[in-house]
């Protein structure tokens, strides 16, 4: 095996010189280039999704006032602001907005290229914000980008099992991405049924007023599903077949475990989404009635199918971030991960249990209340592996020798947010409490702590592996400032959403001031919006750092963090075929501060006298 691997690596090296620009940078079959392609595509989409969030926040803080810098958006979506006042779409609205903080600021800023948002467009904006963030940012970044980049490098393989399939996976995601962005520009605008696209609103174009845009949404996700499926097959095959000699299952880094489990979830969950999307498309375009009661269909069937996919999807999103966090916490605590096997098994438990909790999204949907109790109990059970992971992370920190690098700070930020997101999930799990907080900002707070909290895992991964991927270091000081601002404003933006939810503030509303019982809390909306803007602005520091470091960052060594896993034994950045010689693995990935060696790290592939014998078995 090792000889074959070395030969393959050698071949790949030879091939390298023959590849032209197109085969190297565009239609590349190298997992590292494909990983980078996913990475850049998702960062671009992160900007789109983030700007959409800013529009949502503006509308909620200062409803129906002119949104600045949006006058370029055409008429059915945004209406030009009144000549003499920025506020004025609705008569007497000024009275409502004025008592709240920031009204004058909003009015003066709104006069800068401001336009009024149409309520139907608002629905498109939040629908697309969620769709883009989930399917076109977090998934391609963590699974597409880091999954691709890390799996072969961390298991000691030269490339993926199916390099051409891998290339196709990226190039299938491209048309899906173009289509979802293009859907903004078709007549009627983009899909406006929420990212969950509940039928019957989504199943009949006359009900939502969005025709082509929603069709494009469905088709885009169908295509993206094919892309993810190709990736999943590739990841699973690679992890099963291509581990380097000595890389047993329980010597794999937890990030590989997380990506492996994620790939299995993708493989099993996507067909369900594909089936549901197909039915929805038929209902929309061919007059079938899968979800339309008029023709004998059942609207709640969509919810069952969607959430049967949707809950595993949540773990598809969060598991890789958990894996990344485990690796980074161990590296920078200079300490083996606490309870390695418990960490691996708890991920498998999460993956398994994620199939039997979907009904907790549907407690008040009209599903039989007896079923609600069953789903509540399974949901309570799934909280246990999450608790295990959290406490094991704490155990990893205990007794460590902690280095506060930027990746470490972001990993700690992820843990801190995950704790809040996990605990707030318990409220929703309890059926009676969920009656009140379902579809309020409490759930919005909860899933942003979990899903938007993944951005901390994403940044942790990017700061950590940037030297390997691009061969240069990122600026540490800027990284730390970026972390501090992101952490503070993230919590200022999302924590008060719990308060709004407790107050009964519905999600997906365009103007909270239409409800008397929400008036007292409106200033929280203003506070959240201000924090969200600051959160958005803080990311400029990241972009400056990212681009500057790409061009002029300090050259990175092979192993700048003194880490143990195999990717750090390859050059930075690794060439074609990754390793000069196929590594042999002698031990687990987290042998930090081992008494066997002087240094406080012990790479997986370093041969030590007596250990080498047991390892080669």
């Amino acid at each position, binding site marked *: 095996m090792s000889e074959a691997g070395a030969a393959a690596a050698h071949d790949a090296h030879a091939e390298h010189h023959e590849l032209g620009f197109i085969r190297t940078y565009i239609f590349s079959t190298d997992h590292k280039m494909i990983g980078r392609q996913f990475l850049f595509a998702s960062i671009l989409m992160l900007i789109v999704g983030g700007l959409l969030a800013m529009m949502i926040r503006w509308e909620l803080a200062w409803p129906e006032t002119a949104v600045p810098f949006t006058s370029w958006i055409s008429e059915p979506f945004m209406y030009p602001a009144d000549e003499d006042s920025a506020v004025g779409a609705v008569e007497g609205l000024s009275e409502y907005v004025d008592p709240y903080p920031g009204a004058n600021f909003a009015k003066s800023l709104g006069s800068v290229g401001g336009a009024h948002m149409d309520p139907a467009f608002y629905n498109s904006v939040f629908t697309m914000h969620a769709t883009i963030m989930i399917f076109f940012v977090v998934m391609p970044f963590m699974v597409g980008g880091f999954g691709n980049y890390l799996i072969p490098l961390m298991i000691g393989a030269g490339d993926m099992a199916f390099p051409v399939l891998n290339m196709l996976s990226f190039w299938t995601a491209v048309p899906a991405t173009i289509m979802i962005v293009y859907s903004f520009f078709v007549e009627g605008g983009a899909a406006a049924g929420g990212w969950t696209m509940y039928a019957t609103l989504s199943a009949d174009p006359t009900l939502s007023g969005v025709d082509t845009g929603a069709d494009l949404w469905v088709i885009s996700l169908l295509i993206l599903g094919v892309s993810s499926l190709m990736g999943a097959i590739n990841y699973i095959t690679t992890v099963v077949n291509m581990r380097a000699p000595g890389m047993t299952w329980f010597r794999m880094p937890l990030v590989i475990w997380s990506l492996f489990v994620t790939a299995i979830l993708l493989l099993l969950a996507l067909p369900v989404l594909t089936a549901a999307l197909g039915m929805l498309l038929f209902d929309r375009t061919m007059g079938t009635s899968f979800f339309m*009661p008029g023709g004998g269909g059942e*609207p709640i069937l969509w919810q069952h199918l969607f959430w049967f996919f949707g809950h595993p999807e949540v773990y598809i999103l969060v598991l890789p971030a958990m894996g990344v966090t485990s690796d980074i916490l161990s590296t920078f605590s200079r300490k*083996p991960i606490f309870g390695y096997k418990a960490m691996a098994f708890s991920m498998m438990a999460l993956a398994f249990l994620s199939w039997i909790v979907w009904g907790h999204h549907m407690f*008040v949907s009209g599903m039989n209340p007896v079923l609600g109790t069953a789903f509540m109990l399974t949901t309570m059970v799934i909280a246990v592996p999450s608790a295990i992971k959290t406490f094991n992370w704490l155990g990893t*920190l205990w007794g*460590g020798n902690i280095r506060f690098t930027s990746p470490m700070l972001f990993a700690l930020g992820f843990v*801190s947010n995950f704790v809040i997101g996990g*605990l707030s999930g318990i409220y929703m799990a309890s059926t009676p409490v969920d009656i009140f907080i379902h579809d309020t900002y409490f759930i919005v707070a909860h899933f942003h702590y979990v899903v938007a909290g993944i951005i901390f895992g994403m940044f942790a991964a990017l700061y950590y592996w940037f030297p390997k991927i691009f061969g240069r270091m990122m600026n540490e000081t800027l990284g730390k400032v970026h972390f501090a601002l992101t952490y503070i404003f993230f919590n200022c933006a999302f924590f008060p959403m719990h308060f709004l939810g407790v107050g009964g503030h519905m999600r997906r509303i365009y*103007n909270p001031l239409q409800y008397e019982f929400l008036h007292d809390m409106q200033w929280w909306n203003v506070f959240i919006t201000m924090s969200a803007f600051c959160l958005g602005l803080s990311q400029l520091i990241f972009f400056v750092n990212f681009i500057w470091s790409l061009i002029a960052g300090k050259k990175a060594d092979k192993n700048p963090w003194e880490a143990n896993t195999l990717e750090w034994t390859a050059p930075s950045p690794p060439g074609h075929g990754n390793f000069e010689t196929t590594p042999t693995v002698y031990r687990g990935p987290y042998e930090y501060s081992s008494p066997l060696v002087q240094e406080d790290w012990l790479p997986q592939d370093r041969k030590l006298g007596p250990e080498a014998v047991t390892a080669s078995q």
Partner: protein
Amino acid sequence: MMQWLPEDVSPYGGSIDALFYFIYYITAAAFILVTALMIIFLYQYRRNDNRRAVYTHGHSGLELLWTIVPALVFIGLGLASKGIWEEVKLNVPETDVEIRITGKQFNWEVLYPGPDGEFETADDYQVDNDIHVPVGKPVRVFLGSKDVIHSLFMPHLRFKQDTLPGRFIEAWFQADKAGAYEAPCAELCGFGHSGMKGTLYVDTPEDYAAWYNKRWPPAETNGGDSSAAETTEEILASGAAMDDETMSEPEAEPAVTEEEAESPTEGAADSAAQEATE
């Protein structure tokens, strides 16, 4: 955090809120524990080049502890929730007040069965967004939809139930304090979703009788079938006072704020609430 919870005016809301608080204390304790440990560890075990990290791969006892303790807490929470859920959802009390609320883009269509107690008969009364119910009496509500999924949300009653096209979902609620409460739609239902709301008028017995008698004057009811007449009599028995002022007041102003609606009828509401609990 919990001070933002809207006032509860339902008989079962108290137990939902108690559970809410219970979870709040548990999660707050867990949050403080984890965060405090994290901060202590980060400070205590910050980088020190004269010291080596503890070389350990875990501790089975500890890991068992933090598997079993959360599991027990979650099972306890599950059991506590189960009881209240059944109380609220499954044990529908006997009542003679029935209404049908049908969501349509973007209004609540409220249908009152009238004296005969049957829907879709000649004496039905249908109106958009005005839900009149007597204080302190269970109300059985049949929820439906004409187009998309809506969700009837009455924050002050801790009530939320999606409405589905193609079927009627039976639910119940009870308000123990007279007043006017907002009843928004909580499920995205299209471009007019924001602003789709009804008003729940919880009427004192007098107001309710007045409203009822205006709709169905007693003279007419005598001609109806006996069971329907009984229903009406029962409602009237809780204290009818026909007075032109009270008759027109609740309908004229749909945007009555809570305080306005509460103040004049507070005494009556309290006594009604007491009656209901007895």
